[in-house]
């Protein structure tokens, strides 16, 4: 199998697919690495339905799938990047074992994940992320006849609530922590993005029967070992709703592990890039949620820019500058509208688990001075998720800088790492 490419793209969501197709069409040899079983990323997950024309973005997915398939991109599914052992080289792992792929240009398009903020009861079964519940339903979870509460913050809430209703659940409430005034400000900002406005309005009209609360947030979930109820607050009063599923997530954060490992400069939570999407590391081009949480359209524009630019067609990349600007502004307005409110810092009680991998509680973490001390003394962030869940929570709750990464950035087999040692010896590293 060929292991050396002009361009390697990591992540086959909209941004990665666009980048790979454009670079390959421009004549470059391109490899597209992806962790999941099928291309499409989180937004186009379960894309057989999308390809058949049922999904809301079926057209775009079908078009980019054809371009990826038709341009000779080498697609490798089920692959995790675990290390960057030398410049221009990735250590990867799949079911088949460890391997290496080398590149001239690298386009990380690793997307984002939900921000989880701990509250009493968030470890009960039946409490999931917002995108998390949607992913489980797409993967066959039958929620017909169950009571669902969708809560947290961000544009995902309405979309997922609508999808849960279509899947046969009773959506008991949609609970957005941002105050209405902030949302209206955001709505005004969105006037310059008609596609987004219509999308939002469509979800809203579909959800009119559910109770849509703004300026309310989840304070705790109740149940013995499975969620049975959720308690909400608006600061002045509380209410408790019975539910079978509580989907709760606080907007998205970028998956920065790979750019950090590569040494890319991070500014205000995102990879800093120039107008060609190039990071501070020459030859490393970052796109999509890595440079600002803006969704599919932003990722596709940025993916195309990085594809053209990495292939040496900077004029064609520059032609997309205005569309890029529009989506960057959109991403910034999302961040402003959906900033978690300070009251959420007060939710964990002494015994609330913050680090789910190692069962480390708020009481153990609160007296610590920083992330490093927390890791050394409590094992917070040292479990299998490597701080992907509790890192964001600790940053928000305690104000810690949780930036440090070290390889392997994903749990890897010893054989994969041993092969890396061997390869380094052969290279004379």
């Amino acid at each position, binding site marked *: 199998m060929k292991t050396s490419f002009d361009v390697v793209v990591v992540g086959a969501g909209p941004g990665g697919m666009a980048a790979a197709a454009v670079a390959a069409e421009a004549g470059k040899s391109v490899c597209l690495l992806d962790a999941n079983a099928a291309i499409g990323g989180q937004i186009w997950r379960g894309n057989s339905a999308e390809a058949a024309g049922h999904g809301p973005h079926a057209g775009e997915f079908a078009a980019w799938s054809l371009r990826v398939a038709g341009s000779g991109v080498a697609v490798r599914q089920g692959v995790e990047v675990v290390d960057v052992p030398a410049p221009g080289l990735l250590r990867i792992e799949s079911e088949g074992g460890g391997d290496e792929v080398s590149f001239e240009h690298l386009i990380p398009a690793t997307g984002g994940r939900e921000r989880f903020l701990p509250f009493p009861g968030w470890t009960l*079964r039946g409490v999931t992320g917002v995108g*998390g519940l949607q992913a*489980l339903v797409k993967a066959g979870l039958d929620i017909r006849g169950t009571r669902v509460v969708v809560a947290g913050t961000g544009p995902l809430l309405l979309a997922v609530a609508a999808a849960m209703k279509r899947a046969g659940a009773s959506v008991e409430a949609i609970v957005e922590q941002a105050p209405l005034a902030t949302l209206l400000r955001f709505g005004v900002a969105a006037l310059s993005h008609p596609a987004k406005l219509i999308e939002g309005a469509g979800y809203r009209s579909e959800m009119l029967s559910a109770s849509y609360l703004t300026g309310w947030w989840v304070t705790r979930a109740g149940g013995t070992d499975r969620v049975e109820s959720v308690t909400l607050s608006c600061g002045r009063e509380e209410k408790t709703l019975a539910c079978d599923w509580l989907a709760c997530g606080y907007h998205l954060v970028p998956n920065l592990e790979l750019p950090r490992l590569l040494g890319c400069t991070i500014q205000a939570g995102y990879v800093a890039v120039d107008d060609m999407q190039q990071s501070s590391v020459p030859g490393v081009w970052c796109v999509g949620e890595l440079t600002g949480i803006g969704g599919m359209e932003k990722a596709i524009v940025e993916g195309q820019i990085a594809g053209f630019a990495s292939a040496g067609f900077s004029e064609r990349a520059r032609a997309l500058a205005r569309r890029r600007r529009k989506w960057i502004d959109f991403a910034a307005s999302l961040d402003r509208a959906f900033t978690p409110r300070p009251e959420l810092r007060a939710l964990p009680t002494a015994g609330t688990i913050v680090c789910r991998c190692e069962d480390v509680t708020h009481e153990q973490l609160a007296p610590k001075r920083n992330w490093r001390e927390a890791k050394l003394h409590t094992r917070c962030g040292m479990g299998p998720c490597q701080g992907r869940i509790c890192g964001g929570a600790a940053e928000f709750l305690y104000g810690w800088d949780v930036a440090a990464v070290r390889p392997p950035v994903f749990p890897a087999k010893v054989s994969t790492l041993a092969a890396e040692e061997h390869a380094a010896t052969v290279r004379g590293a």
Partner: protein
Amino acid sequence: MNDGQIPVTINGKHIRVKEGTSVAAAVMMTGEPCRYSVQGQPRGALCGMGICMECRMSIDGVPHRRAYQVLCAPGMKVVSE
């Protein structure tokens, strides 16, 4: 649930799921936990995208597999970790 064609066994419970169902989705429908935490709390899938690692299970004897990522196959045996 239980109206599909694919028979799988989860902690000894036999269920049938539709083709294309992930192991995580099947487990959530049985009421079984994916894993027990270090303090013994039963846990289920949280993120649905392979990042939180709460869905790791032993599948056909292979430990630490992320159940969200594995599709149910006929006769598959799944055990909580």
